[in-house]
């Protein structure tokens, strides 16, 4: 509570929908959407007065128009919305079908050096200064924020694996529900109208409309399965027919909790002894258990899984798998080759939540292992076996790497794609990194040089820009969102200070800060409660250069590292 005498700037606390997703949505547009496919089947009485369907459409949706060959969303980009085709035809291109040149992928332009210097010279002396509580509407990220380009080649002629979507069809659901990147590029084939529904609206509608939820969830499973299989290197040489055949026999499984962070926060605080950690591992949902006969090949589509082996009285973590990883291939192949059943060498457990695709053993034996399989398939299999052998993983890993793996998995740090790792043996505690961060953010440092340590390495409390950013799940306004490049950002003007993201972040990397005007007066409600906003690292996306913290370190002690793959970290350690 702020002392009344310190508060001059009395304002109303910002609320959800103070800034709609699109200010151009008219009442006529809302009526039109209510009559559109899916929406016309919804029961309006399922929505409470405080959250009417019409309000959701007005505030969380926007109508976007595209012309022939214009890209709506790109493969590999992160989106925060699902899309409903209102009119026209769009093409969903198969993964990696189009070259990066023809996709016209252009990364967002950073501000010039001159404007960065100007911004730095004009920086405020006081912390967390804002012009106003709300500001210019720019909430969330929509396709409008992207650099929309045209395909350089005409995709309408390419019919082979392209899926055509017409009025009433939905796309983008896999990426937004799975908090993962787009697996396909979607292009307009003529003049097209698309309804963009941001995550917050989609979440609220799914919660109240079981029919809509079922449709979305089915699409998520079917398309996720098909397109994931196409992107797996092991199956890259298979024909479209074979992939379709495989998709029809493969199973899509979801393990663990979608909102896993709540349980994780609770148990990680309680865990003190090795026994506690063993109990935590045992409580993780088992996908495949060591000693059991393998029941098909497991492919990780989303989330993370722990590979562990039971030694004496404890579980020893050998590694982890994320998107694209596979489990059980070695055992399945050995069993087929030797003609006798082989049990699994390790267990595979879901860390948080994991989407898994299970490929039946008999299909693999006929189409992949058989002597009659094409030569290209045999080469792909050999390569996959080399990469996925758990026994090889064990023999290739140094003891320090094993402990490091255990530490990273234990603390779920494998989620970070840009974790701030500090080498404490080189860090001289000069705080140049903190000062640099403050310089790049209007005098407000966006991280704490403190955090969990493993030996001489510390993972500082800076946003890790997670592969699975659970902080975004509950945001009511879309203020916290992911840029197409994967940077988790907060749109300050859209943040209403509800603290949901800060509470959801399992790593305590989001801080709630009191904001003030240029004179230093804290903004506060009439009852004296200060207005707060979420604050975190944005990887210096608004400056002219790469993360300031990393550039500032004169001792080569700080690095932003993608911990999804432990080799990134071990390479830096061995530098």
């Amino acid at each position: 509570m702020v002392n009344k005498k310190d508060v001059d700037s009395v304002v109303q606390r910002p609320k959800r929908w103070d800034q709609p997703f699109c200010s151009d949505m008219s009442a006529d547009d809302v009526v039109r959407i209510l009559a559109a496919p899916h929406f016309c089947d919804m029961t309006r009485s399922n929505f409470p007065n405080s959250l009417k369907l019409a309000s959701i459409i007005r505030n969380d949706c926007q109508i976007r128009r595209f012309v022939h060959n214009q890209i709506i969303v790109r493969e590999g980009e992160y989106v925060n919305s699902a899309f409903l085709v209102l009119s026209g035809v769009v093409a969903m291109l198969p993964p990696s079908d189009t070259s990066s040149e023809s996709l016209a992928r252009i990364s967002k332009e950073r501000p010039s050096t001159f404007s960065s210097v100007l911004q730095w010279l004009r920086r405020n002396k006081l912390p967390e200064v804002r012009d106003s509580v709300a500001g210019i509407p720019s909430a969330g990220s929509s396709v409008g924020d992207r650099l929309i380009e045209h395909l350089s080649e005409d995709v309408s002629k390419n019919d082979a694996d392209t899926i055509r979507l017409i009025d009433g069809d939905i796309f983008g659901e896999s990426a937004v529900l799975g908090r993962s990147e787009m697996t396909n590029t979607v292009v307009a084939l003529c003049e097209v109208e698309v309804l963009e529904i941001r995550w917050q609206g989609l979440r609220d509608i799914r919660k109240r409309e079981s029919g809509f939820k079922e449709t979305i969830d089915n699409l998520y499973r079917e398309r996720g399965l098909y397109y994931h299989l196409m992107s797996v290197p092991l199956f890259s040489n298979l024909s479209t027919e074979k992939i379709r055949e495989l998709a029809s026999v493969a199973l899509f499984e979801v393990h663990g909790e979608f909102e896993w962070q709540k349980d994780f926060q609770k148990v990680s605080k309680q865990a003190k002894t090795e026994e506690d950690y063993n109990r935590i591992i045992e409580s993780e949902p088992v996908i495949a258990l060591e000693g059991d006969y393998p029941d098909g090949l497991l492919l990780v589509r989303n989330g993370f899984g722990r590979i562990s082996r039971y030694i004496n009285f404890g579980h020893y973590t050998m590694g982890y798998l994320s998107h694209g990883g596979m489990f059980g291939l070695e055992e399945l192949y050995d069993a087929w080759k030797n003609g006798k059943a082989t049990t699994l060498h390790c267990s595979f457990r879901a860390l948080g939540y994991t989407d898994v695709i299970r490929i039946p053993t008999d299909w693999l034996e006929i189409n992949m292992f058989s002597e009659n399989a094409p030569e290209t398939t045999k080469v792909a299999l050999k390569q996959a076996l080399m990469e996925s052998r758990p026994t090889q993983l064990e023999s290739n890993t140094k003891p320090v790497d094993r402990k490091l793996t255990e530490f990273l998995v234990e603390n779920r740090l494998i989620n970070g794609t840009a974790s701030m790792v500090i080498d404490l043996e080189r860090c001289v505690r000069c705080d140049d990194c903190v000062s640099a961060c403050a310089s790049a953010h209007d005098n407000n440092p966006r991280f704490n040089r403190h955090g969990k340590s493993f030996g001489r390495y510390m993972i500082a409390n800076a946003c890790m820009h997670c592969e699975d950013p659970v902080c975004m799940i509950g945001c009511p306004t879309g203020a916290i969102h992911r840029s197409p490049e994967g940077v988790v950002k907060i749109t300050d003007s859209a943040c209403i200070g509800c603290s949901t993201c800060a509470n959801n972040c399992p790593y305590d990397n989001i801080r709630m800060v009191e904001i003030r005007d240029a004179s230093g007066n804290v903004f506060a409600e009439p009852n004296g409660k200060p207005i707060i906003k979420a604050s975190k690292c944005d990887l210096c996306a608004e400056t002219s250069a790469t993360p300031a913290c990393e550039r500032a370190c004169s001792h080569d002690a700080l690095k932003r590292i993608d911990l999804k793959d432990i080799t990134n970290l071990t390479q830096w350690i061995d530098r």
Partner: protein
Amino acid sequence: MNFGYRRARNTAGVLAAGIAAVFTFEIIDLSIQVQQYYSGWFMIFLMAILVVFYVKKRLIVVGMGSGGNWAQWHYYIGLFLFIIYLKHVEFSFPDGLVESTITVFYLIVMISGVCGVFINRVFARRLSYLEEDIIYERIPVHLKKLRHDVEGLIIDSVENSGSTTLSDYYLQHLAGYFEKPQFFFTHLLGSNYGFLRVKDGLDRQMRYLNKKEAEYALNLNNMLQKKNLLDTHLALQRVLKYWGTLHFPMALILVLVTFVHVVLVYAFRGAA
């Protein structure tokens, strides 16, 4: 290529370049020219690069490359500059007032720089060996809390044990230890001698304590360890933070004095 190899290679490279530069200036001397003009301006050029590192640190919003690379260049150019300097003064201590002043400032800057590298390498490593990492600015808060906790423990021991042996010992020998940071220089030298003496004193008291007091004494022992940790952090981090306060201002003064030196040299060049 490991860390040690890279350092040895770079140092050898700098020494080779330095020797080459010395020979070059020697040749200039032999050609009946004053090599000091050339080596002097070359030194100013090198000094400018060294100063840009400081500017780069302040102007972080401009992407001028990694700080780590800049620091490496700073060290090696500093070393190279020293070789050029030795040739500039013809391997002798100058006798003029201005020249002597510059030399003193230069030596302060150079020696503080070399000491800084040593401090950075050694103290950072020693900090990483400590059981917990503590932020320097929070140490006073931790010290205050620890003092509060210790006082609470002593009051509890008197109330619950019915004896004042431990509290008397605390008031006579330990209150001062917890009052403020201790054994600054001992910690800098990497010794735990001061702390061990204090701890040993408490250990010797154990035989005079009753059972209840002994339990409190064990807790007090843990608090002594915590205090020692805070003192170690404070000593090492204080030096890490403030050694630069000698190096940077002296470097700026050196730049100014060098300017005066250049003006005087050109003003009186006819006299040479």
